[in-house]
């Protein structure tokens, strides 16, 4: 299991991949908005997205776990 954490404080702008879907290495799971930028959250290793811990519009802080990926 790999926890995808936020590198930034901001908000969830768009969720791209929903729970249960499979991921290729480098896929964008969701896009955060911070400092007027669209920051992609990328699954480096791929696998299956087993859990989403945030919803669109939600505020997030640096280091917060956004999703969990199973390799």
């Amino acid at each position, binding site marked *: 299991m790999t926890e995808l954490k936020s*590198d930034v404080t901001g908000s969830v702008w768009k969720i791209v991949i929903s729970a249960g879907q499979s991921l290729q290495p480098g896929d964008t799971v969701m896009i955060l908005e911070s400092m007027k*930028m669209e920051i992609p959250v990328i699954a480096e290793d791929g696998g299956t997205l087993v859990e989403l811990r945030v919803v669109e519009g939600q505020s997030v802080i640096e280091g917060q776990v956004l999703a969990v990926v199973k390799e």
Partner: protein
Amino acid sequence: MTPGDVAESPSSVPDGAAMPWRAELEELEQRRAYARSLGGAAAVDKHHHQGRLTIRERIDGVVDAGSFKEVGQLTGAGRYDEQGRLLGVTLAPYVMGLAKVDGRPVAIGGEDFTVRGGTSWSGDRKKGGQGGFVEDLAHQYRIPLVNLIDGAGGSVTSIKRRGHSVFPGVHGFERSVQLMGEVPVVCAVLGTAAGGPAGRAILSHWSVMVKDTSHVFAAGPPVVERSLGQKISKEELGGPQIAVATAGTIDNMARNEAECFELIRRYLSYMPQNVWQLPPRGETSDPVDRCDDLLRSIVPENRRQPYDMRRVIRSIADADSVFEIQPTFGKAVITSLARMNGHVVGFIANNPMIYGGAMDGKAARKQTHFIELCDCFHIPLIFLVDVPGFMVGKDAEAAATLREGMRSVYVGLQATVPIYTVVVRKCYGMAGMGTTDKNGLDFKIAWPSAEWGSLPIEGGVAAAFRREIESAADPKAREAEIEAELRAAASPFRTAEAFGVEEIIDPRETRPVLCAFIEAAQARLAAHTGPKPKYGVRP
């Protein structure tokens, strides 16, 4: 052959009464055998079972095969019978000497954890740690120092042994500090480092620790519990997650000791032997005029979308030459040693993936250190700029972003190595100014995607034209109109007309242009070697 061994074994000493010094030579061999056995088989086994190598294995792992010439091998406390015959030696828990890395001499040493946990030891002269022969060797011979740290520093038991308590600094950091301006100093934390050894790790140009087996802190969990009532594990208190990623106390993390040794060798490959020399030029088969088409399309036209700045660095630098320093700390800026047509350079690049590249306190601290490092060892700097300014907000102010940011600007203005500014996208405010070579050639190269100013247009229009916007029939439309008007005038080509930016290039030309100027700067770099004393007080 074990390092420190000589080719002859005791059996090769010829028999016969005619052999002079026979007993003494045998004793020397016996004493060397004690030294090789470290803290004894049981202690070495225990150390190995914890996933850690002995100090002799570590030195072997770092240096060129067979190059280690040990100094102070016999140091320790001998145990004798009533006739004065040697029974054994409790070794001084420190192994050090002269060796080579990639054919170049280095001073190298480290605590022997299998002897009394690597705690400090006092003979007539210290071997290493803070001060000692190994630091004198690096200083006198002007060669790099590699510290392999695995010790917890002083122990209160020394009060009993000495009959008095030592004043802090009796074995001080004065030589360690002096070395910071003379030769490359690399410190690896290879166990639990607290107190003096932990402090020693910080007095380095580059430091590294190993995942799972290394911890570093001012004081360990028992002291923390006694002082603050906090129960905390070694890992939570001083593992890489805290020491490397959160605090930046240690620069890089290695996955295991073998990778750690490889990283040490790699780091040293970018360094000169001392500040009186230039870094060695590396070999490369990467063509100097290589133009990577990727650079034309990597920056999205949508200004809100970030891109992978590490790919930009890799596209510009010599193939496989990029070595990132502090990759997990202060991530809004990327600092990497690399080579351009073989010449060592330092890249400082804003990372648009982290807060759009806005410089926060940690990123500024990282940038400050990297500028000083490169300036000290005569390594030209290349800024790849995409910075909207200093990070804003209450957290950023509380983290002293303004002070850390201005310190970075100050240190940049004191640097005397050539600085090349490549504006990839945004270059705003004081953070943007800090990427330029105002006391040097002030050579700024921009990509067509570049934009700059005192502050980004979208943030400034509402405030600067408030009255005009409020009094318009359709304020929103008026604001958009003014923004469009200003954006047209803010084209980088208009600044280039005024020679306010020295050149605008096709991004794929970045490598050949930089290589040409870095090549041309070599003679001037060679003429300005030596220590770089700095005046004034850093903000």
